[in-house]
């Protein structure tokens, strides 16, 4: 394997175009184990971490820009980001150990395209956008359009994600991400559930977004759960409707982490709890994280 660490997006695009057998990487926390487990080695490794834009974390008046290779520990440690996006920050904080979080990135977590990637449901409910570098410049696509199946993305050869843009939430909005794992730490989601809820002055939901991970070939939004909330208060009845919609939206596999039946059941419970936690955050009454929600 050859190794290049370009310092500009344009140089990275040129490097990728120089051989068909090239591969970009950020933290390499998935790439190196994959190579060790027998996947073919790329001929050229293109390290994106020397490009300033790729490792940035910047706040504007209306949005945040997160470099695709920015270590996820930067998100969890930034008090301003974490207070505006507690769910996305917590999802980033669930990806492996401290050792991993100093290397892992939203770009890598998305493009590795594991259905169980923790940051993806949290990005979906915040409707994050990916800025993709191409041979002709850049294009911006919703994060929901990037993964197409396990290990597969819509990126073309020679393209890579430069950064993510995520708009700041409106007032009285909260987000949350919860996951089910048998262990407390260092595990892969059996089910993950993200939610973002906006409430009006009466406590009725004006906007709701719900997304699930690890229960289908890609993380997905659950429009029926969202529809069940809009215009209504967060109560036992609407939360039950969220749970039913979430369970119905699952298309999971049976594997060592969980059966189809178990995943469907847990997806409903977690979606309900994530919506409740997001709503508590939206109304300023959240007193706990997801552990006891």
């Amino acid at each position, binding site marked *: *394997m*050859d*190794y290049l*660490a370009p310092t500009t997006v344009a140089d990275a695009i040129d490097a990728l175009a120089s051989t068909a057998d090239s591969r970009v990487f950020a*933290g*390499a*926390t998935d790439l*190196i*184990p994959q190579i*060790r487990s027998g996947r073919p*080695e790329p001929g050229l*490794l293109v*390290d994106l*971490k020397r490009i300033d834009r790729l490792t940035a974390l910047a706040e504007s008046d209306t949005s945040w820009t997160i470099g695709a290779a920015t*270590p996820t*520990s930067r998100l969890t440690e930034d008090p301003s980001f974490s207070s505006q996006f507690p769910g996305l920050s917590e999802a980033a904080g669930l990806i*492996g*150990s*401290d*050792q*991993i979080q*100093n*290397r892992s990135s939203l770009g890598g977590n998305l493009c590795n395209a594991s259905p169980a990637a923790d940051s993806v449901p949290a990005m979906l409910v915040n409707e994050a956008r990916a800025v993709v570098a191409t041979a002709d410049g850049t294009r911006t696509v919703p994060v929901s359009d990037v993964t197409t199946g396990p290990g597969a993305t819509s990126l073309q050869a020679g393209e890579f994600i430069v950064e993510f843009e995520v708009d700041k939430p409106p007032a009285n909005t909260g987000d949350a991400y919860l996951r089910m794992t048998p262990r*407390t*730490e*260092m595990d892969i989601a059996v089910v993950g559930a993200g939610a973002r809820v906006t409430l009006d002055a009466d406590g009725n939901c004006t906007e709701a977004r719900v997304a699930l991970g690890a229960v289908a070939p890609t993380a997905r939004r659950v429009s029926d759960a969202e529809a069940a909330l809009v215009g209504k208060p967060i109560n036992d009845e609407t939360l039950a409707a969220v749970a039913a919609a979430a369970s119905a939206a699952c298309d999971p596999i049976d594997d060592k982490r969980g059966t189809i039946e178990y995943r469907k059941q847990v997806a409903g419970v977690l979606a309900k709890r994530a919506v409740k936690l997001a709503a508590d955050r939206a109304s300023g009454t959240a007193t706990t994280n997801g552990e006891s929600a």
Partner: protein
Amino acid sequence: MSRTHVNCEINGDHVDFLSESGASLLNALRDDVGLMGVKEGCGTGDCGACSILMDDRVTCACLIFAPEAEGRTIVTIEGLAAADELHPLQQCFLEGAALQCGVCTPGFLLAAKALLDNNPTPTETEVRYALAGNLCRCTGYDKIIRAVLEAADILAANAATNGDAK
């Protein structure tokens, strides 16, 4: 496979070495630089035995390509003690028998150092979370957690004394 010339700082010294481009920093540190304190456990970032500090961040050397070290500042277990005086973490591990076979110990010590550098007064829960990426198959962890908490107290006391001296 091409070889890359890498310049970096390791344990306070400027070091340059030639490495295979696709080699892990773990292998480069052991085979090219001769720092055998960096241990290989799983080789996939799950066990933390190869933990090092790179630019003050704890990472697994097995998940880093050697050329990525260019221009970086690295601390391995060989750089933890000051001259002939053990670091308080090392002393507490020793006195508290927080190790048996010792293979995981360098990684634990560096992960603990990264924690205490950022959070000098961690709770037991914070120590347990911070060390979740390090596996020990001998001790059962309790002695390790106690040793880290004890070292935190010693470091805090030292810092207070040094503060008084000024």
